[in-house]
Each structure stands twice: as structure tokens, then as C-alpha cells.
């Protein structure tokens, strides 16, 4: 399954109870590699991320307008197949949220939904995905114990494996390291770097240094608007917008 899905956001507007969170957003996200969505907290970057797999609509009183093209299809169109869309995108939340079941079942959960699988196929899948996130060696002895028993850093890796098991093309990360200790955060960051060859990764963060470490492309969002976007080097070395300069120099606090 080749991943060729540049994402294009056209005139995206999101409001919550009549309060505008995203105002007229335009953005292109290139395929493959890591695109970092950068901005101070409360600027609407998580909201943007949750628009991509339309998780945003789960909350009440949310209104979404505009277009988001993935694979040349407008996913905000009412006829979009939400399940197929969501299968295409893996989401990693801020705080790792494991499912109330064993480690094994956590990884197998999504895959089992979409495909009828035999026991040995599932075993293979679980092993493969856990290896991808470097968790296999740590948990292979206790696949049947509760996912709750893992450390928080391991839980986040488990969540990543669970997402990868449904064979997504795009990975969405909503500040996935912010609840972790520095060591676990580093492991997750390394994983992203190793995954970027095969997946389009969109990461939301407010940490400048993390953006510098991981990004291929950067989009800076401030107060619900895209201020500037471009390749990493250009963005950090030669910012054009005044607000970007101020953010980079730490005047706009994150």
C-alpha cells in the first residue's frame, strides 16, 4: 500500500459554541516525512489535528466548514466513509490511553475489527507491530497481562503499535510526548524518525526544540490561523512573518 496522500486544507473554519477556534485555514501537508504543527497552547493545533480524522465531531456544538483533501477526496464531505478514513489515520493522544484489556488484545483490537484473522495471523501481527515500536522484548513474556500494568512510556509505545496495526498511511500525534518522562519521550521521538520513511506523520507540539529535532516541514499556527509554513531549514533560519520571529525568539510564550 503506497502512501501518496498529500493533505490539502482549504478555508477550514471550526467553531465551538459560536466561538471561532480555527479561522479560515489554508495548509498543504506533503506526503511522507514529518510535518510539525507548531504553536502556543490554545492556538487550535489539536483542533486542526482532530479534523483530519473527524474525531472533532464527537464533541457537541462543534461546527466544521471548509475542505480537507486527502488523496484528492474531500473528507469533510458528508458522504465520506468515516471508518475507512479513520482506518487510514492512526492517532496518538497526549496522554497514552490504553484499552481496558490485555497487551495482546490492545494491539490486535483494531486489526480484528477490520479483518477476519486467524490466531496465528494475529500472533504474527502482534509480534510485528510490537517489534516496530521496540516493545516486543519488554513485554513478550506477559502479553496477557493488563495493559494498565505497563509504565506510561511503554503505554504510549503500545498505543502507537495499536495504531500501526490497522495499517494506516498517516500518523497523527497530538503532543504525544508531553505526558512522558524525558527518556520515554526520546524513545518515541526516535520511533517517529524511523517511521517517517513509510508514513506521513503529522505532529502537534508547542516545544520548539522538539520541532527542530523532528520536523521536515513546519507549520506555525497562532490564534487559529496559519501564520507561516515551509521546510524546516527555511522556517527556522529565515522566518518571514513578524509573529513567527517573535515566537521563535520566545516573545510569544508557549
Amino acid at each position, binding site marked *: 500500500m503506497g502512501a501518496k496522500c498529500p493533505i490539502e486544507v482549504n478555508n477550514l473554519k471550526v467553531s465551538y459554541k459560536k466561538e471561532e477556534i480555527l479561522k479560515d485555514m489554508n495548509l498543504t501537508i506533503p506526503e511522507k516525512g514529518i510535518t510539525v504543527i507548531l504553536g502556543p497552547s490554545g492556538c487550535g493545533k489539536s483542533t486542526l489535528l482532530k479534523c483530519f480524522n473527524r474525531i472533532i465531531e464527537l464533541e457537541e456544538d462543534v461546527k466544521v466548514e471548509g475542505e480537507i483533501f486527502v488523496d484528492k477526496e474531500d473528507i469533510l464531505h458528508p458522504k465520506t466513509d468515516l471508518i475507512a478514513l479513520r*482506518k487510514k489515520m492512526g492517532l496518538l493522544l497526549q496522554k497514552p490511553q490504553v484499552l481496558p484489556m490485555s497487551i495482546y488484545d490492545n494491539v490486535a483490537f483494531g486489526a480484528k475489527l*477490520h*479483518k477476519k484473522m486467524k490466531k496465528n495471523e494475529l500472533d504474527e501481527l502482534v509480534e510485528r507491530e510490537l517489534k516496530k515500536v521496540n516493545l516486543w522484548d519488554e513485554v513478550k513474556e506477559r502479553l496477557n497481562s493488563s495493559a494498565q500494568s505497563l509504565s506510561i512510556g511503554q503505554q504510549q509505545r503500545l498505543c502507537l503499535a495499536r495504531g500501526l496495526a490497522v495499517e494506516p498511511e498517516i500518523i497523527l500525534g497530538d503532543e504525544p510526548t508531553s505526558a512522558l518522562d524525558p527518556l520515554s519521550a526520546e524513545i518515541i521521538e526516535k520511533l517517529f524518525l524511523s517511521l517517517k520513511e513509510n508514513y506521513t506523520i503529522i505532529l502537534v507540539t508547542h516545544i520548539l526544540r522538539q520541532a527542530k529535532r523532528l520536523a521536515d516541514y513546519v507549520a506555525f499556527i497562532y490564534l487559529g490561523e496559519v501564520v507561516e509554513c515551509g521546510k524546516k531549514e527555511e522556517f527556522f533560519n529565515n522566518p518571514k512573518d513578524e509573529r513567527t520571529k517573535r515566537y521563535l525568539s520566545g516573545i510569544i510564550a508557549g
Partner: protein
Amino acid sequence: MDDNFFVRLKGRRVSNRFVRRFSYITSLSLFFLFALIVLMLSTEGIPLIREVGLKGVFFDKEWLPTEGKFGLFNFIFASFYTTLLALLFSIPVSILTAIYLSEYLKKKVAMYFKLIFDVLSGVSPVIYGFWGIVVIVPFVRKTIQPICEKLFPCRIFLSDNKSGFSVLSASIVLAIMVSPLIVSISEEVIRAIPFEIRQSTASLGATKWEIIKKVLLKRARGGIFAAIILSFSRSIGETMAVLMVAGCQIKGTPISFFDASYPLPALIANTFGETMSIPLYKSAIFLASLVLLILTLLGNFIGWIILLRIEEEQS
């Protein structure tokens, strides 16, 4: 994504849609059930009003079904009398307990007490009735009634009824039954008051008791009021325990604490079997149920609205 996925997805969608519709109908049927309860009791109860008139039903003191007299006044009065007396006993004790649990005890210790209240408030009403018969009724008959008669010989303490099965016994049993409810709601409301508020008052030099008296009780009064209203509802609808200890004799309006009391629910429970043959008698019993339904709904409505508003303010 292969075809297999989409075929499977179709099946998943179908079952999902089916459950969605079915559950929606089930949820809606709850409103239907509620309407049905109101409707049934009304259609069965209204004929009596049409026959005897509102005044004849609610203000007539005579209950002589064989002669076509269906005055519910004494029963309604007895219901309010017993319930209000029960609340009079229960409110101060419960609120003091609630304050003690939330302000003077550690959360964990308070939890144990609340657990005891919780478990015992779930015990069957007939067990409370049982307790009333073996403990409270004899106590009222042998101790309270003679003492009161001697000390305060006025109408409210004098009665021909020397059995102990009385307004007072019923009220005491009811008070014990509803106290856990008032305690647990009040305790929660008081405990939910933010720590900062206590702190800022304490920093002004107020003692613990002053904080409770001037700040906490003032802030919690809505919730406490809701607790009282809810327990009013609970106790006015309580049937079995009251039926067992109130005496339940048709002997005029109860005035004294020691008169026998015959509240509405007891009337329904005692007479429904005999009513089948006389249409108006039957209607009277359903009308009594309707009155009870309206009273309890009203209480619950007010109580829950207050509690919901408090909950929304906090979040």
C-alpha cells in the same frame, strides 16, 4: 484497502445501525412509560372527582365508601403531618452529622460512616417497620406517652389511643429511614465547596466553627434544601414501614402526636383489594395514588433541578 474490508464493513454498519435504532426506541419508550403511568392513574382516578367534586375529595373529612363519601382530607393531612414531623426530627440531626462528617472527619473515616448509612438505607422498608413494632412502638407506649401526658397535658400530647401505634412512632421510623439520604447529599455538597474559600476565610482569622456557620452553610444551603425536598418526597411515599407502625385507623383527623395516623400510601395498600366491586371506591384508590404521584414528582423535580444547577455551576 481490499474488498474484504468493505464487505465486512457493510455488515458492521448494518448491525450498528440496527442497535442504534433499537436503543433509540428503547430510550424513547421510557418517556412513553412515564406518560402511561400518569395517564393510567388519571383516567382511573378522575371519575371520582367528576362524581364528588374537587371539594368533596380533598376537603371532605368523611371516608365512608359504602355511603359514597370519599373525603381524602384526613389521609392527606396525616401524610403531611407524619412526614413533616419526621423531617423535623431528621433535619437537625442529619445536617449536624453531615457537617461533622465533612468538616471534622478525614475523608476515609467519613467514607466508612457513609458506607454504613448506605448499606442500611438500602434495607427493606418492612425491616424498618419491624424495628418500629419491636422497639419504637413499645418505647412510645411505655415511656414517651406517659411522660408527655404528665408533663404537658395539652391537646397535642393527649390521646385516647394508648397503643403506641401513632403519628409519633411513624415519624420516628421515617426520620431514621430518610436521614441517610439527607446526610449523604448534604455531606457531598459541603465537601464540594472549594478549599480556597475555606482558606481565604481562615486567613481572615475566622475559627473553624465560624467558617462553617458563616461560609459553608450559606454556600451549601441550596444543596441542603434539595436534600430536604428529596427526603420529603421519599417519606411521603413511604408505605410499608408507616403502614406497620402508624396505627391506620379511620378515626378523624390526627391532632395529637399519639393519635393513630392513616397516611395516603397506607390507605392504598390496605384497601386496594376490597375495591374491585365498587367503581367509585376503585377510583378513589387510584386518585389517592395520583395525588401521591404528583406530590412526589413535584418534590423530586424541584430537588433534582437544584442539584443539577449546583453541579453545573461547579463544572
